[in-house]
């Protein structure tokens, strides 16, 4: 449970100790827990907890495209659905896709596409489903981090994993990985998706108010966060596949 101190108190106490509403340092990620290969039916899947965010992603494909006219003769297409469960937020969210979810599905797809060798699978689609089971700020980024792992788990050839993380400005300070209250009361929020090996930024959005100089620092902060997540992603993949290969050897 996050305790939200009163305004006056929070300014005093946070500035003094240099910590945030949930006690983190300015450049500290929330605790992350990742598991790869969690769903039996999907070709690839992953589950991620980042603070109170709980995200499930599944990948089906490459498979035949329906309707057929969407198929591309020279490459595979990615279809992506980002969706929040009705119970994922305080006030029940109507299950029908909102305009926010339509936009996020689009930008998440565009964040994942540069990472995948789409030209290997012409005439097919790769379907990516992201379900937010519980939301506490930064779910689009958590969704990308999880979906990239599900793609890797499905055995789809990739140039790199995609790690995503937001940074922003809260109470005049630049901070990494904003929780919901920080996002709502803060001055700016900048979600970034990053392919560390290619140094490519594939998702960049912002809302709020920042000078160009502050913006540059925030992007720096966010990419550093992405690099930390990237290490955790690789560890999670290793954990699954190292155990699998050990089991095979035993047999």
């Amino acid at each position: 449970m996050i305790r939200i101190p009163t305004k006056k108190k929070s300014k005093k106490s946070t500035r003094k100790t240099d910590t945030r509403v949930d006690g983190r340092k300015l450049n500290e990620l929330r605790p992350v827990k990742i598991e790869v290969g969690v769903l039996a039916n999907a070709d690839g899947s992953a589950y991620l907890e980042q603070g109170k965010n709980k995200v499930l992603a599944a990948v089906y494909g490459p498979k035949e495209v329906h309707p057929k006219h969407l198929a591309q003769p020279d490459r595979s297409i990615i279809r992506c659905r980002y969706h929040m469960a009705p119970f994922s937020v305080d006030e029940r969210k109507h299950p029908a896709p909102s305009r926010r979810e339509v936009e996020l599905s689009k930008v998440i797809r565009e964040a994942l596409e540069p990472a995948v060798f789409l030209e290997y699978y012409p005439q097919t689609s790769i379907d990516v489903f992201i379900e937010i089971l519980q939301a506490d700020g930064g779910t689009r980024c958590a969704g990308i981090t999880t979906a990239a792992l599900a793609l890797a788990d499905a055995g789809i050839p990739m140039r790199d994993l995609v790690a995503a993380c937001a940074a922003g400005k809260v109470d005049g300070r630049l901070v990494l990985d904003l929780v919901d209250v920080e996002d709502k009361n803060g001055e700016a929020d900048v979600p970034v998706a990053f392919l560390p090996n290619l140094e490519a930024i594939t998702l960049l959005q912002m809302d709020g108010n920042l000078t160009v100089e502050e913006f540059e620092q925030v992007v720096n902060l966010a990419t550093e966060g992405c690099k930390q997540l990237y290490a955790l992603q690789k560890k999670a993949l290793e954990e699954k596949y190292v155990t699998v290969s050990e089991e095979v050897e035993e047999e």
Partner: protein
Amino acid sequence: MKSPIVARVKQKRIAQLVSSGKRLDGRGLNDYREAQVEVGLIERAEGSARVRLGKTEVMVGIKVEVGTPFPDVPNAGVLTVNAELVPLASPTFEPGPPDENAVELARVVDRGIRESKAIDLEKLCAVPGEKVFIVFVDVYVLNHDGNLIDASAIAALAALLNTKMRKYEVKDGEIKMKTGYTQLPMQNYPIATTFAKIDNTFLADPWLEEEEIMDARLTMTFGKDGKICAIQKGCCGYFTQDQIMEVAKIAKEKSAELRKLVVKD
């Protein structure tokens, strides 16, 4: 939305020219097409504007209606932005509910106005928690020749500045309209600037055929104080951090230039 097909020779020609700093229509890399802004064309709407950016044409109409506020902000009016990619605007637009491109367009325009606090929404509250004014911004694309975001954002700002709402008074919790009009309470002028990336070169204000072959797109919206208030990266390519900062510098200058089209000081 089906994308129009650009002949391979033309694709190559565009890319070739871009690598030597030129463009097919003779513009420099950082040049915008000729822009025209007209306001007050629709008398029935509280505010309206039509923007032509080259052959791209966008109309924005503003309607102001009385409604209930959101429970979490009972003292503020409501801003709603909607965009329609009208089928008459392009052979690739289909009738039907807004697709992801229309939703993205509306939300990027919305973010610019909202985050820059362009409208002082608190002044649009008549009876706190009960009756506020809702500002509907409807973006209507009339001809699609690329860079709909910038054209729509300019048109939205011009239409908001053109908006006149009826004077009113509050009696026993009821709104009574009076004769005469007032301007919308505007306090910032957000301007969006969009750049396309083709072969690691950046082009301001991409037109349709450049959009078809671009690797990625970056839109930055600036307020009048020169601060960034919204960003949207689009398309399936990527940017490096240095490229983003390079675009930010040019975008800041361009947004100040474009603002003069709408705000005369």
